[in-house]
């Protein structure tokens, strides 16, 4: 007999009517993800269903939703992982609902921007002197750089639940991702956005962010490291080893003997539309 899964979706059309639950029966194929089930519904049962997805491979962060009492990336979670023949899918908590399962993530991106999430250097970069990064220096921030801005951590955080202006685990973890990078010199600048009301000190280590993060980012760890660095900085104890510059490289010089060469150019920018504009 064909295996079927019953999918209950919270529908909301932002027309002033309260949200309601709608039920669909979906034939369950092996390896079927939650996103596959939603696509099936949209293509075969109800074209008016709204959800957001793009990469369908856990990279774009579009498809986070609340399934049977836990936040998941719909594309990254197979139905059999849920272990139930009934899925109850709701929009991600702690974000405003635009329609059905589509939430407005702009508050996430706004908070992300305030922590200056990019490398800040005190001097103009020198193209000919690459910055040396040892493996341990890479590992200090690598984990945190895997964030795909899906918002799942914010949906689990109890502080975010009652304080929408709290920077939240996503932004705070990114503040540490850049501050922990040996190439970065922007901690003093970033401090202003962190050390303020609704900033880093509103984290009380509930840990839901790290538990639910689908990319293994561990925001809670980054945030506690951030607190330690801030406290150290009050006593003038936050020091970073100044990043060392490698030997000068010349972009014109031929690569050393035996080094792998890039493939020959087959088209030039001039003769294709690749030249831009």
């Amino acid at each position: 007999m064909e295996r079927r899964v019953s999918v209950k979706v919270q529908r909301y059309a932002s027309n002033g009517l309260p949200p309601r639950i709608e039920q669909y029966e979906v034939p369950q194929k092996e390896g079927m993800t939650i996103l596959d089930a939603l696509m099936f519904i949209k293509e075969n049962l109800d074209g008016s269903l709204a959800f957001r997805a793009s990469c369908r491979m856990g990279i774009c962060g579009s498809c986070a939703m609340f399934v049977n009492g836990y936040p998941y990336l719909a594309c990254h979670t197979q139905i059999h992982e849920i272990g139930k023949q009934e899925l109850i899918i709701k929009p991600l908590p702690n974000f405003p609902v635009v329609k059905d399962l589509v939430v407005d993530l702009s508050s996430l991106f706004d908070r992300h921007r305030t922590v200056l999430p990019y490398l800040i250097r005190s001097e103009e970069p020198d193209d000919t002197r690459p910055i040396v990064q040892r493996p341990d220096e890479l590992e200090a921030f690598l984990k945190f750089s895997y964030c795909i801005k899906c918002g799942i951590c914010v949906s689990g955080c109890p502080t975010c639940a009652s304080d929408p202006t709290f920077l939240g685990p996503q932004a705070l973890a990114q503040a540490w991702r850049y501050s922990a990078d040996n190439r970065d010199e922007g901690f003093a600048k970033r401090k202003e956005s962190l050390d303020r009301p609704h900033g880093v000190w509103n984290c009380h280590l509930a840990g839901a962010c790290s538990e639910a993060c689908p990319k293994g980012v561990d925001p809670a760890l980054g945030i506690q490291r951030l607190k330690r660095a801030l406290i150290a900085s009050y006593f003038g104890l936050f020091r970073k080893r100044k990043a060392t510059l490698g030997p000068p490289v010349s972009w014109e010089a031929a690569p050393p003997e035996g080094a792998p060469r890039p493939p020959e150019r087959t088209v030039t920018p001039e003769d294709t539309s690749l030249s831009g504009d």
Partner: protein
Amino acid sequence: MAIPLKARPVQNDLGIVGWGWAGRYGLERYLYTLHRLTGLGVLFYLVLHIFATSTRIFGEPAWKATMGFLHHPAFRFGEYLVFAGFVFHALNGVRLIFQELGYLLGKPTPPVFPYSYGLRDFRPVAFLVVVLAVVGAFVAFCDMFLV
């Protein structure tokens, strides 16, 4: 029904209810809530305590009346709850002091599936806090009500 032209997204914040439940999360998220509740509970007790003892300035009869009133079993049980809450709060507070400074959380490891995270790697610490708090609450219970 006419659909408003400028339909707005609906607010979906969990609010204070979200302190209690936001999904099937593990131990530490509940310790967050319990730490807050016990902190506020002990603070409430402190205010009550100052208020009750201050009746002494109205002379002995007022003081005796207050003490008599506070001998009610309900207040005794309340006192027990405050103590048990304080034991948990203090023990968990020590854990938080370490972990919120980034200790007892491990190092950032490369994100290799299946992922783990600092708090889970050090969950035995949180378990220890819970066990010690339960033992403390049990001993206090025996001491106050049984012996």
